[in-house]
């Protein structure tokens, strides 16, 4: 019954979005006054999706093996958290999560937007309903999560052990909130283009949605990066894998949008460009979903390849993206831009920021799709990897970092103050750091050197805009901006430090032997068996020391029975100065065990910086929300 209730809720939600679409068309054309009805429909539709998703969680929590999806992806002997999180650790469940977030975004837009012209809002809700309708059809016709299995399976097939990790509970939902949250910006852009009201009011209405989605994307990517780092046991935090790029591209577009929408809100300018970015950002989310779900690109994220599902999403993608671009092509010429910008002003800096972010987005997009495009045109097979991305995107990111130091120091319209003087101190820091790197780490590449120098200059530069202001009077949004920028500087420091200072040792050792990695002496004392709820393991004991104190690390090779798989559980010792990362592999005939050891100074800064960026976003969102609330109270 639970599964049927979920399925019924999905059908009902699909019907309501169809109704909502028709009513909103009628409202925008002026044939019917349907403002309240469209809003109510959007809210109910979102709640029905949420209900269906709750039903899916319930069948997974109870391991109802008469539901095909549960039988294929779950197992009764699994900790409850992975039973529940396993609900979205598969195609159908994750698409239901996608649709649920889409529905809830529409509901939130309907419930929380009060200051937009009715025509714009209802057109946006119509666009949201059209999106929901397509993805509902995809769920119901090509990916039904509630399909029954008759007779029920005696036992489930289990969940991929790599996914049996707390990361699964956090990473996909966060990322989806970001991906799909961008649908609101897309719909608002469509609504505003249809209604012809692209102005500051729209920007103020759009900004919290972009900010919210961007925060979730930032945190989701940061969490995913750390998850891959410790779970895969490869010691890397970013692999330029197509699925990673699929999450990075919407983030790049959203970051650009976040800044251009600020220009629209402050200066009533960059109208067409902002609308374009809003369309691109969510299009990137949909393209990412397509790339991941169709499996057309080779990736470490092994998802099942299904041409029918791929074609279905491709069809949706084609309809939505081309429709939005067509609308843009027709309506963009009617948008009136304001006066041109002064070359030294905050808006000019943001234009440069947008250009750089867009170029980086293009670089990642081309690199990700190039193997596919090359094979389609020349038949040649090739792969594009880190050397391309680092070499092309890296220098652009450094330029972006320099801009990040300058931009916040400029004021809107026209900068009258001497900017260069305020930049003297950060510039001095950066130049000194750069000189030091050339002496201290001559063997590392140019990019890590410039990265470290940039971070050294950027950390003071991001704080300068706060200096001389009363901390209590400073708007939360300004604090948020400074903290997010500081987070970017900290993350850059971590990335550069990781590639400049990491030492790696791959060796085979007998119990009792000592291995040296960086400043550490690591003694391999032996291996012991270990047992978990649904796995057994070989556990190595490593005693690491660098002068004083002993750190004990216990990396494992785990053997799961359902499904039969072997995983490496890295043991990581986190210190203020960095991380010692250890992996144990197989043994050979002479009783030696493969050990892989890394000493990674300051690597944690990467994710700490990511967290700071998210925190900055949250503060800014809180600031905007508080201001909007006060304004409403005042009325």
């Amino acid at each position: 019954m639970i599964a049927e209730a979920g399925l019924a809720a999905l059908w009902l939600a699909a019907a309501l979005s169809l109704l909502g679409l028709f009513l909103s068309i009628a409202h925008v054309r002026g044939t019917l006054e349907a403002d309240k009805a469209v809003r109510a429909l959007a809210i109910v539709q979102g709640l029905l999706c949420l209900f269906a998703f709750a039903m899916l969680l319930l069948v997974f929590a109870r391991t109802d093996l008469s539901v095909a999806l549960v039988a294929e992806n779950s197992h009764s002997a699994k900790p409850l958290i992975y039973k529940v999180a396993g609900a979205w650790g598969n195609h159908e469940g994750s698409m239901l999560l996608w649709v649920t977030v889409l529905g809830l975004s529409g509901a939130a837009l309907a419930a929380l937007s009060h200051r937009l012209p009715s025509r714009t809002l209802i057109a946006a809700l119509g666009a949201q309903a059209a999106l929901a309708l397509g993805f509902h059809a995809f769920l119901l016709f090509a990916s039904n999560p509630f399909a029954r299995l008759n007779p029920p399976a005696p036992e489930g097939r289990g969940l991929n052990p790599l996914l049996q990790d707390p990361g699964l509970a956090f990473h996909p939902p966060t990322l989806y909130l970001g991906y799909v949250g961008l649908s609101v910006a897309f719909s608002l852009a469509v609504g505003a283009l249809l209604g012809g009201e692209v102005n500051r009011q729209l920007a103020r209405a759009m900004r919290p949605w972009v900010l919210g989605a961007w925060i979730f994307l930032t945190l989701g990517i940061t969490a995913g990066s750390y998850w891959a780092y410790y779970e895969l046991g490869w010691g890397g935090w970013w692999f330029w894998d197509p699925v990673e790029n699929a999450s990075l591209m919407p983030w790049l577009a959203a970051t650009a949008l976040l800044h251009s929408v600020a220009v629209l809100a402050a200066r009533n300018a960059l109208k067409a460009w902002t609308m374009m970015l809003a369309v691109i950002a969510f299009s990137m989310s949909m393209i990412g979903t397509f790339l991941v779900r169709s499996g057309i690109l080779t990736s470490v994220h092994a998802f099942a390849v299904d041409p029918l599902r791929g074609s279905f999403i491709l069809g949706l993608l084609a309809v939505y993206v081309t429709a939005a671009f067509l609308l843009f092509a027709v309506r963009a010429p009617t948008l009136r831009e304001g006066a041109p910008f002064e070359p030294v002003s905050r808006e000019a800096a943001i234009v440069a920021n947008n250009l750089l972010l867009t170029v980086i987005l293009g670089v990642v997009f081309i690199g990700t799709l190039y193997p596919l495009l090359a094979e389609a045109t020349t038949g040649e097979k090739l792969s594009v990897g880190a050397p391309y991305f680092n070499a092309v995107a890296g220098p652009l990111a450094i330029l972006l970092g320099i801009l990040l130091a300058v931009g916040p120091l400029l004021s809107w319209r026209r900068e009258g103050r001497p900017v260069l003087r305020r930049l003297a101190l950060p510039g001095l820091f950066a130049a000194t750091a750069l000189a030091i790197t050339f002496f201290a780490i001559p063997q590392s590449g140019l990019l890590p050197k410039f990265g470290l120098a940039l971070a050294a200059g950027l950390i003071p530069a991001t704080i300068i805009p706060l200096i001389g202001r009363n901390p209590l009077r400073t708007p939360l949004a300004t604090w948020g901006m400074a903290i997010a920028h500081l987070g970017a500087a900290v993350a850059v420091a971590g990335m550069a430090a990781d590639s400049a200072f990491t030492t790696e040792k791959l060796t085979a050792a007998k119990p009792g032997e000592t291995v040296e990695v960086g400043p550490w002496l690591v003694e391999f004392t032996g291996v012991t068996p270990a047992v978990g709820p649904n796995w057994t393991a070989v556990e190595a004991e490593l005693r690491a020391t660098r002068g004083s104190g002993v750190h004990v690390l216990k990396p494992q090779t785990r053997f799961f029975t359902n499904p039969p798989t072997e995983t490496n559980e890295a043991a990581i010792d986190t210190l203020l100065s960095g991380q010692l990362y250890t992996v144990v592999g197989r043994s050979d005939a002479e009783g030696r065990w493969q050990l892989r050891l890394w000493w990674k100074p300051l690597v944690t800064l990467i994710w700490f910086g990511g967290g700071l960026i998210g925190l900055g976003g949250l503060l800014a969102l809180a600031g905007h929300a508080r201001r909007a609330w006060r304004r409403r109270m005042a009325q």
Partner: protein
Amino acid sequence: MAEADGPVSRALRLLPIILTVWILGTFAWRLIQPDDPTIRSQLVNREVPAFDLPAAVPGATGLKSADLATGRPRLLNLFASWCVPCVAEAPVLAEIHRRGVEIDGIAIRDTPGAVGAFLGRHGNPYSRIGSDPTSRAQLALGSAGVPETFVIDGKGVMRLQHVGPIYESDIPAILEALEKAR
């Protein structure tokens, strides 16, 4: 961001759509024509990497890469006693050998006893058989599985990689490649 409204800006406005259609078209092409997962060796038309393998069965001759550059084109066949397609391939290899082609073999991840039994049951077309118990030479050759067969010319340069068993119908192509490698 420009305000101009001439024909150029109209073309610019349509650019996103054109790009989108192009990219979506490529996606559709890939969906219709699924990926060919065969892994091709990067060494085709290059010299065979250096290896020196001991004999796979007592009494046979081992195989080192220098043995392949004898002035006459030959086949290098990677096989294993535990590989079922290799059994199917054995009579075809025997037929090629009967037509005067010299064949060297590498037994992948195998034991002398098992290779001996395999050759006893399915015949031995090989001039030399090296043993590669750890797949080291196999990976160096750019091979991802068994059976695989390479056409090596007289100078020890790899001219053709045949992935999977050689069927009766593949014989003409193999012979032609050998002829060309002469």
